[in-house]
């Protein structure tokens, strides 16, 4: 049997996806070095096509599209990763409590989860932003609020099945406390589906963030890919690059995350992939 690392990194799709994600992360982290000027600054004539002066051209106000992309990577990735972390943390807590204690706690927590799940998630996020007012923090909150229910359900199911295993009973017989059993015995054994779902959730978060920014509900004064598409959409026929370039960025990034997520799934559950 090959090791996890071999199975994961031996998959060419994972390597391609990871390569792009590393590139995007470098863009995001080094944004101030790679594009030192403010992405909102007017640096040239409007609607300059991609070419010599500006590699990816300028937009309707004469802003540098390349600088926008680089700074946009920072905003988009930061918001989507933070919101996913928040959703995973909260969803895990709810799912773990529901699965471990079962009975009335489970009933109550799962009814609440279902309540959140039945509201169409994008509309819900829209309403939350409208109530909370657009800002980076509120975007994180809104996206997290609409994406934790699937995590809670997955964790609950895993906890239920792990809880029935004998090593958990052995821990009870050894006299371990509930919280210690949950955190040291059960949760580590639910990690693999959690990692896979969590990684795919980042892709959904990017899409939600972009869609909100497209509608003008993104973080104000922060360049993001969705905002760029929204600002450029009226000039699609005159200046195709304004919409196309950030659109392609979103596409490739989401695709890469999905490739890596599926690669993780195959590597963590080798039997499914092999037989």
């Amino acid at each position, binding site marked *: 049997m090959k090791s996890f690392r071999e199975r994961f990194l031996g998959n060419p799709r994972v390597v391609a996806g990871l390569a792009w994600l590393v590139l995007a992360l470098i863009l995001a982290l080094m944004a101030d070095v790679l594009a030192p000027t403010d992405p909102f600054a007017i640096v040239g004539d409007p609607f300059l096509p991609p070419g010599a002066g500006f590699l990816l051209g300028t937009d309707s106000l004469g802003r540098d599209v390349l600088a926008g992309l680089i700074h946009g990577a920072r905003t988009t990735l930061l918001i989507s990763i933070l919101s996913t972390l928040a959703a995973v943390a909260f969803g895990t807590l709810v799912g773990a409590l529901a699965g471990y204690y079962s009975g009335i706690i489970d009933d109550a927590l799962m009814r609440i989860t279902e309540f959140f799940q039945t509201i169409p998630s994008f509309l819900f996020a829209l309403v939350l932003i409208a109530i909370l007012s657009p800002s980076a923090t509120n975007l994180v909150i809104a996206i997290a609020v609409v994406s934790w229910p699937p995590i809670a359900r997955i964790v609950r199911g895993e906890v239920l099945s792990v809880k029935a*295993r004998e090593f958990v*009973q052995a821990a*009870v017989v*050894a*006299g371990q406390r509930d919280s210690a059993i949950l955190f040291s015995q059960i949760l580590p*054994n639910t990690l693999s589906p959690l990692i896979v779902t969590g990684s795919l959730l980042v892709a959904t978060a990017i899409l939600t963030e972009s869609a909100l920014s497209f509608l003008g509900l993104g973080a104000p004064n922060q360049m993001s890919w969705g905002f760029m598409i929204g600002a450029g959409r009226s000039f699609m026929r005159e200046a195709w690059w304004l919409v196309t370039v950030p659109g392609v960025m979103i596409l490739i990034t989401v695709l890469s995350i999905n490739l890596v997520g599926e690669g993780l799934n195959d590597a963590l559950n080798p039997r499914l992939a*092999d037989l």
Partner: protein
Amino acid sequence: MSDVVLGIENLIVELPSWSDRKHAVSGISLEIRRNEILCVVGESGSGKSVMAKSILRLLPEPHVRVTEGRIVFEGEDLLALSDEEIRAVRGGRIAMIFQEPMVALNPVMKVGRQIDEVLEVHSALKPAQRRTRIVELMHDVHLPEAERIIDSYPHELSGGQRQRVMIAMALAVEPALIIADEPTTALDVTTQAQILRLIRELQRAHGTAVMFITHDFGVVAEIADRVAVMRHGELVELGAAAEILNRPQVDYTQELVAAVPSLTPRVRDPGPAPAPLLVVHDLVKTYGAGSGFLGFGSGRKVKAVQNVSLAVGRGRSLALVGESGSGKSTLARCIIGLETPDAGEVRLDGERISGLSRRDMRPLRRDLQMVFQDPFASLNPRHRVGHIIALGPMIQGVPQEQAWADVRELLKLVGLKPEAAERYPHEFSGGQRQRIGIARALAVKPKLIIADEPVSALDVSVQKQVLELLDELRRTLNLSMLFITHDLRVAATVCEEIAVLQNGRVVERGATADIFARPQAPYTRALLDAVPGVAWQKTA
């Protein structure tokens, strides 16, 4: 010989490259003749199931595949047939009976319809004729009320009835060969005895050839005409049943036969009875008493344990023997505090331990520990062995360094290397894992150990070693033990006293030797008679 139904010639089955060995089956040749039962015996990993599956080409190809050899059935090489042709052989000329009838039967289809499907594919009978034939088959396999069972779903039948349905399906079109892959392993002993008798009877009546795969030499003694012993994918010994059972030639076969727990009951040490350490008085546990959400679904109550009283003397061991559903595991869980009994009390060393909260129970965990059934599920795969064993003592307040030093001693005590502490459970075999489980139970130096079927998931040879280890530890550490098992042979080897449970009640209790010599309750007698190979072991 014209009598030969199936001939396997130099069969080699290759395993995928990441397996721990190259071949599942390496160069097996054997024959099955008309009107005989050939038992293929071997421990787990011997390749016996893979060989059987390769006959009907049921291997998970391309990962596991036949690379060499021929399987000749009625003059044709099965391995050379097209997919269409092999489908006609499956269920038609060769039928298969699987280990777990609940899984082998389709849960959403009535069992009559499932038998009907076989007839529909492999015979030219009209629907009305097929129904008559199904009723006939059900009579053949001694299923009562055939008309009712035809329209039942698998979950409405008992395990034994389901296996009878499987046998009826196998017999439906009078196959020349039946392959039975551990068909009685999932059944209770008394049911197993009935199914074995049925297979024997039907095989005689129809003159069918049967390949019977099993790991249990008791079953072999009950049913086999000839025996093939397999190990690591190779044929170790092949011969008539009486020869192999009573005069095995090869060392490995001798070891296997010797490892079968004997029926010789263990004798109680002479001297006055010691003071009881564990006393269970009038314990009751009922399931399903509560109602579901909003009062819906208040299901029927199951009386798992009904007014059970028993006692284990200091330094003594008591076996709780019973079939599935007898309440033996529930009783153990009530004693150890994994379940709360509805009534009655449990006393350990004079102190009441039933009805305590988890917090109040914690100091008592030092005296009372458990060894679990499944060595693969009872160790947390993400913790190091040392951590698993040291957990109990550390909760009891032993400093970490001391606990880890003790772990090394314990590992030596159970026959493992001290370095095992640094490794993870998946690096160990089933028997080694059970040793780790025993070390974990011993870590807090308990007075009483409850062992819940500790050897039922292990191969016979490993089973013997683990039982010997438990025995030795009991003597050196002066442990008392409550040993739960479904296997009277194991109970006789380990325990000097036995309590027999049926439907949540103790039907008989006493010294093992007395119960074996003069069983009082009819149920105990039935259990003793049902032990596979009982006649063989008495003569041996």
